């Protein structure tokens, strides 16, 4: 049932540096832009003096709040229309100049006067102002079934702990960029975005333009992971405003430091979790309370406690999300939003319970397998979690798991841990156009974009398969609002959204050809020449999923081996074995790449990544890629990925999302392995050397060498 291990069709362009990313368009007469950033934490902008900036050689223009006043009010324009500073580093203006250096110099010379207000720079400075948002992501913020309080009182075992996760930043390798220019009343916008159509809609609304007068292009996207979306729009709109006034193309590219504050972050969480079991290891109750940060200008809440509602069978569950507003940057989804921090808590707690109950961690999860979604009381469209446990455990060698803290390899203390991962399977509306060219080749068009997940390749495969032509005959065009409207790249849903639309388009194309008299044994190339010499095209459209009577999710099981240095407490992940069930696998080569990449993102969250905020000013400390640690080549373990094919007859084409799965579950799998290696349970992320230092064996202090020697 699996598809072909086809190579990435845009690979040759990317490995030769010829793939054109949004910032690489260089229109004649292009200006460069730079942002003027607030130096206070919270307050009002009462004056902007750009007289010194205007004397900078090469200076052309400066825009600020007054110039955006005519834009339509919305969340995308609030920060550039209203002179209010919500967090340090918030842009208060934009300069445009002949060169990037001149633009930056001019920006540094803009004088801004403020009236400061008291600020809140960390969630623990305003705990009494915590509130429960109506929604956490796409779900209701609070849930309640059964009577968990009573069930916990009567439980055989209760594991009750606090788990904490840090702020993370996405940091795709390509910085956010826009290059835009006006052609009369129309505007062309090349920008790094996870949603060309979403960006077009925002621009059209903000500037009160017909959507057709706005063209947004992003043919290649240098990663996103959630941050190339809405929080970028205000600064992009200021650039468009400056371009219109100067009559010149303008390019704004964020610096890496700005990508810590202006494009979103994974919110920190403080999670109080209680799980109760009966004597046989069956869950009787879960209480999961999440406290997280949001900004003073926007509200976002990850679906952190959702896993506690439906991952396991449990009759009594209460979950609650609460937020605290601080003068820090706005959080948004980051790869595996909700499930990454949520599984860290739940899957760590299950490991603690397994140890106390004397039940193998895999067996404990098997005993609590949810044969349907207990939260909504509906069946799964498919759920191969039990098979994932079995396959991954076998390949890992879990049956040989030794007792805790007993295995040593040289200076390394070795531990094994495992955890479950999951992610909802969504679809968005999507249109796909398929054109049969006069020469018999196929062009496929869709206004979605390829974030790096393989959208070009799998769309080509879908159409090539459906039409029975070699992949080499298919060209795919993405990332342009001149193409039929496609979904945003996020939530692991692009492939599932494209599949039914592509199938409808190829079916419609075949029907047209049949109507025109295509012979049964005729090839497409012969038929088009004979009956449609100018070529022929067809469109397909699919709607968003509206699964009410069934729950669609991807699942997986992740096993890790870690080593902890007995002298230095350095933590290394040595190997990861994981089995993932994501419906029908269209391209195992690219799917494995996504899973490995997801797991690596999760390793970063577990052991390295932490955005640090100064508790008095709210400023980011170490806003660069030398201080914000991300995984590098030298950190890599061995990966063994098992793809569990599922025949999901409910989902169109049987396709589920892939990209998020590896970035959840892995955190607890590593933390559980660290506990197995050292006996130390760390309940916060990232887990670093200092968390295990007290584990170091006591050493005898040696005599200091004599200074005279």
């Amino acid at each position, binding site marked *: 049932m699996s598809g072909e291990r086809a190579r990435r069709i845009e690979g040759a362009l990317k*490995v*030769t540096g010829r793939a054109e*990313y949004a910032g690489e368009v260089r229109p004649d007469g292009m200006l460069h832009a730079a942002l003027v950033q607030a130096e206070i934490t919270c307050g009002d902008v009462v004056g902007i003096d750009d007289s010194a900036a205007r004397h900078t050689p090469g200076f052309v223009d400066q825009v600020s709040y007054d110039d955006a006043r005519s834009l339509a009010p919305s969340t995308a324009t609030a920060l550039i229309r209203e002179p209010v500073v919500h967090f340090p580093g918030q842009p208060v203006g934009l300069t445009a100049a002949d060169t990037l250096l001149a633009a930056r110099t001019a920006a540094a010379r803009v004088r801004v006067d403020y009236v400061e207000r008291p600020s809140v720079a960390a969630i623990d400075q305003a705990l009494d102002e915590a509130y429960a948002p109506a929604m956490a992501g796409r779900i209701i913020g609070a849930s309640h079934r059964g009577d968990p309080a009573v069930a916990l009182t009567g439980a055989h075992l209760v594991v009750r702990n606090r788990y904490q996760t840090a702020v993370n930043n996405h940091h795709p390798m390509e910085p956010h960029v826009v290059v835009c220019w006006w052609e009369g009343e129309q505007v062309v916008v090349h920008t790094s975005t996870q949603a060309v159509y979403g960006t077009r809609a925002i621009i059209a609304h903000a500037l009160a333009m017909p959507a057709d007068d706005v063209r947004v292009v992003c043919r290649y996207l240098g990663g996103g992971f959630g941050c190339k979306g809405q929080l970028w729009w205000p600064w992009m709109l200021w650039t468009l405003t400056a371009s219109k006034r100067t009559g010149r193309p303008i390019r704004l590219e964020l610096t890496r430091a700005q990508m810590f504050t202006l494009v979103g972050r994974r919110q920190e969480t403080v999670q109080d979790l209680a799980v109760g079991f009966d004597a046989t290891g069956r869950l009787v109750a879960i209480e999961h309370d999440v406290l997280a940060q949001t900004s003073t200008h926007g509200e976002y809440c990850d679906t952190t406690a959702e896993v506690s509602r439906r991952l396991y069978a449990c009759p009594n569950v209460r979950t609650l999300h609460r937020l605290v507003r601080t003068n820090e940057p706005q959080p948004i989804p980051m790869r595996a939003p909700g499930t990454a921090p949520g599984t860290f808590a739940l899957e760590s707690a299950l490991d603690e319970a397994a140890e106390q109950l004397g039940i193998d961690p895999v067996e404990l999860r098997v005993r609590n397998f949810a044969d349907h979604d207990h939260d909504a009381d509906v069946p799964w469209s498919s759920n191969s979690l039990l098979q994932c446990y079995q396959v991954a455990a076998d390949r890992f060698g879990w049956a040989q798991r030794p007792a805790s803290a007993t295995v040593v390899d040289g200076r390394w203390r070795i531990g094994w841990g495992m955890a479950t991962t999951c992610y909802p399977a969504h679809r968005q509306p999507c249109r796909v156009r398929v054109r049969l060219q006069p020469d018999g080749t196929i062009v496929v068009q869709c206004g979605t974009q390829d974030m790096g997940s393989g959208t070009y390749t799998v769309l080509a495969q879908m159409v090539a398969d459906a039409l029975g032509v070699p992949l080499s005959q298919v060209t795919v065009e993405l990332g342009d609002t001149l193409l039929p409207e496609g979904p945003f790249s996020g939530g692991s849903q692009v492939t599932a959204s494209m599949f039914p639309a592509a199938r409808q388009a190829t079916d419609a194309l075949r029907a047209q050809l049949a109507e025109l008299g295509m012979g049964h044994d005729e090839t497409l190339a012969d038929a088009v020449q004979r009956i449609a010499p100018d070529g022929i095209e067809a469109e397909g459209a699919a709607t968003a999923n509206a699964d009410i009577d069934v729950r669609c999710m991807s699942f997986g099981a992740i096993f890790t081996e870690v080593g902890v240095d007995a002298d230095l407490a350095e933590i290394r992940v040595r190997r990861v074995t994981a089995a993932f069930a994501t419906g029908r696998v269209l391209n195992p080569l690219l799917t494995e790449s996504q899973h490995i990449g997801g797991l690596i993102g999760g390793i970063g969250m577990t052991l390295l990544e932490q955005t640090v905020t100064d508790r008095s000013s709210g400023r980011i400390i170490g806003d660069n890629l030398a201080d914000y640690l991300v995984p590098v080549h030298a950190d890599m373990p*061995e990966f063994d990925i098992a793809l569990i094919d599922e025949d999901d007859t409910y989902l169109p084409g049987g396709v589920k999302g892939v990209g998020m799965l590896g970035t959840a579950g892995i955190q607890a799998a590593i933390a559980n392995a660290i506990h197995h290696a050292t006996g130390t349970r760390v309940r916060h992320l990232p887990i670093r050397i200092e968390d295990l230092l007290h584990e170091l064996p006591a050493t005898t202090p040696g005599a200091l060498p004599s200074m005279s020697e």
Partner: protein
Amino acid sequence: MPIERIAVGLTVNGCAVEQWIDPCAMLLDVLHELGLSGTKKGCEMGACGACTALADGRRIVSCLALAASYAGAAITTIEGVGTPDELHPLQEAFIDHDALQCGYCTPGQIMSALGLIAEGCCDRATIREGLSGNLCRCGAYPRIVAAVAEAAGL
């Protein structure tokens, strides 16, 4: 007031070019002015490796390389390595092993690996160590190492 510019002679991918540049300009920005956009800007502080190019065969982070100081040097960028129709074996190996996702770090990974192979690498651990200045956020690392090992004949 016009911006003062100076003339610098560079040899880029075998072609001698004379370019009027800002005396403070970094090599990465000059390459972009020359229309060579394959060398990527990721951090502007030498911390991510996306801008890796070769200067007289040695790996440099071009975002920290003062262009004026490379007058006369032979610069090799990703555009000088292979073309889509005539790929370098390392580029072919990258595609075979799916050693890329978004592709933005890929030119830097390839240039860094070419420099590393020339420096000499004897096993996968050396490759991992030697390429650790090249960040990849999509997480293509294991497949990059597999591609480099193949191209290095390991």
